């Protein structure tokens, strides 16, 4: 046993950095809170190929039904067919440009959805191959490279532009993932819900930032999985937003809000999204932006550069 443990994190991807000790972060136009809507378009397949890592949250008993699971598969498909269009209508009304984690299966097999996102100037970001094939440390480095390359390539071919953002299926990673993402040109990653500001992820392969999402209030975790009544969820989201706008009088904060069209796009829930977006849009101080707008701004701030300088000195 060492007489004293090493200061800071037990890994090198990001530094220990209590939010109270950071320089002040300013958003454009004097905004207090950057808000990013992450609208997932992930495909849920009938059966992942042999050897794929199907996240434990997708297999019985969580999904409840043995193969072929008509209930779960068709319920997810609802988001692609109908739910997303309802959400687009609501977000369009308030001029919100969403950031869309889109997996390779969706990009390849649902070009109409790619078009609908591009028409709105929404940003597509990598989201793996499918939602039932996650990244895992059980993959070899080569397998992981192919996986990430396939995900990014599918988006590049479907949208004519390579993605610069990433959200893994179920936030899955190996210990190599950030470096491989940076190597493939990814500039920000939403997998780590551990902060209320972006921060630098240190990799030897490229300039990578974290865009942490507020996972607790997302539609699946905040409402669906926890079985909270909808009005309670709406209240939770509004309260998060209000508290963060207040707190951000001191320094700029980030609220990245995750939504799933198969869940929030249901006719019984869309009114809740209307309430939430209307609430956010009416209060001054919020900057509703896409992931890359936020990161492009952030990386030019002294805040980001300062943190990078501290990195160099702290070892």
């Amino acid at each position, binding site marked *: 046993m060492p007489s004293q443990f090493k200061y800071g994190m037990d890994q090198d991807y990001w530094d220990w950095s209590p939010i109270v000790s950071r320089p002040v972060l300013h958003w454009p136009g004097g905004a207090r809170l950057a808000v990013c809507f992450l609208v997932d378009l992930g495909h849920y*397949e*009938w*059966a992942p190929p042999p050897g794929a890592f199907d996240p434990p949250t997708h297999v*019985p*008993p969580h999904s*409840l*039904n*043995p193969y*072929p*699971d*008509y*209930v779960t*598969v*068709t*319920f997810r*498909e*609802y988001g*692609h*067919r*109908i739910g997303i*269009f*309802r959400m687009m209508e609501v977000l369009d009304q308030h001029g919100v440009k969403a950031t869309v984690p889109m997996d390779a299966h969706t990009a*390849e*097999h*649902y*070009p*109409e*959805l790619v078009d*609908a996102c591009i028409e709105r100037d929404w940003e597509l970001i990598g989201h793996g191959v499918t939602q039932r094939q996650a990244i895992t440390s059980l993959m070899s480095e080569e397998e992981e490279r192919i996986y990430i390359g396939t995900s990014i390539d599918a988006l590049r*071919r479907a949208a004519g532009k390579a993605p610069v953002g990433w959200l893994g299926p179920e936030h899955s990673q190996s210990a190599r993932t950030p470096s491989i993402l940076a190597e493939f040109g990814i500039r920000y990653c939403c997998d780590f819900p551990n902060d209320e500001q972006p921060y630098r992820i240190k990799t030897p392969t490229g300039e990578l930032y974290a865009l942490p999402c507020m996972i607790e209030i997302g539609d699946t975790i905040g409402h669906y999985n926890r*079985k909270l*009544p*909808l*009005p309670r969820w709406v209240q939770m989201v509004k309260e998060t937003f209000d508290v963060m706008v207040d707190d951000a009088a001191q320094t700029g904060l980030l609220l990245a809000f995750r939504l799933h069209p198969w869940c929030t796009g*249901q*006719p*019984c*829930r*869309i*009114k809740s999204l209307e309430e939430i977006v209307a609430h956010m849009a009416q209060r001054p101080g919020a900057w509703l932006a896409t992931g890359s707008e936020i990161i492009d701004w952030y990386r030019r701030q002294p805040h980001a550069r300062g943190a990078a300088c501290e990195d160099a000195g702290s070892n």
Partner: protein
Amino acid sequence: MIPLHRRFDYLPWNDRPRIRWPQNARVAFWVVPNVEYYEYLPPAGGGPQQRGHDNPDFPAPNIPVFVRRDYGNRVGFWRMAKVLDKYRIRCTVNINLALLDHFPEERDAMVERGWDFCCHGMYNTRAAPKGMTPEQQRSFVRNCIALFKRATGKQLKGFNVLSRATEELPDILAEEGIVYHADYLHDDQPTPINVTRGKLVSIPYGGETNDSVMTSRNRPWELDTLFDMVRDAFDRLYAEGADNGTVLCLALHPWCSGYPYRIRDLERILDYVMSHDGVWQATADEIAEHYIAHHYDEAVAKIAQLKSAREQRSARRNS
């Protein structure tokens, strides 16, 4: 056999043909009491769903689960029927076919009301047709059709077996003359289901607007929450239905909604929906037949057009 991933084709909401319901209604509203028989000593192998939602690991007889289901038939059903009658609801009963023989009084009460029926398996405690060979599935489907005909004098038109559905089932259903398959939660409209022979359509079932989904499996909700959900869902589908007819399903269970403390909320739900003009309160048989007669071909043509556009686009990308 059509593989699972080709069972239905993509048809985005923003680009599909218009459905018009009879009398220019906006929403087709189908109400589905699940009238179920849970066996006292079910055979092994039913799977967790079939063994009962609340205490899946109780060895049979699983009294805490099954006796509550029995309450549904002895008491709850009759209380529910009174409320359904008040609004002249013509139900589509998700029926465990064995019940028609076990409980002829309940069968007659449903038949006399002119309700339609959708096959919900023989018993709710059996996994069939899951776990069967295609040949066994075919004879299972034939048995269901024959049993239903003997018990009611009617032709069986639909199947809803959800987690018990198999890969082959839709092909077999279409070949045996079944018209609709209600195991899909992927849409708010009927859609074609691809089958090897004949025609089969999906009628959207109530995956969420469902009393047991709201209240069983230790969920902390009650039917007042279901009322809110149905109201919000209806309002949205009603608004959208002005341009393109939609479907709202209300799935019910006598062992759930038939309790005294829930029945008034069920009444509020029916009262809300039925107080609107432009609601086509129909059975799944009627919705399916209307769709096949007026909209099926249009949907198939649109799907083919979208598919060919997708193929051209993919060819351009790869060239």
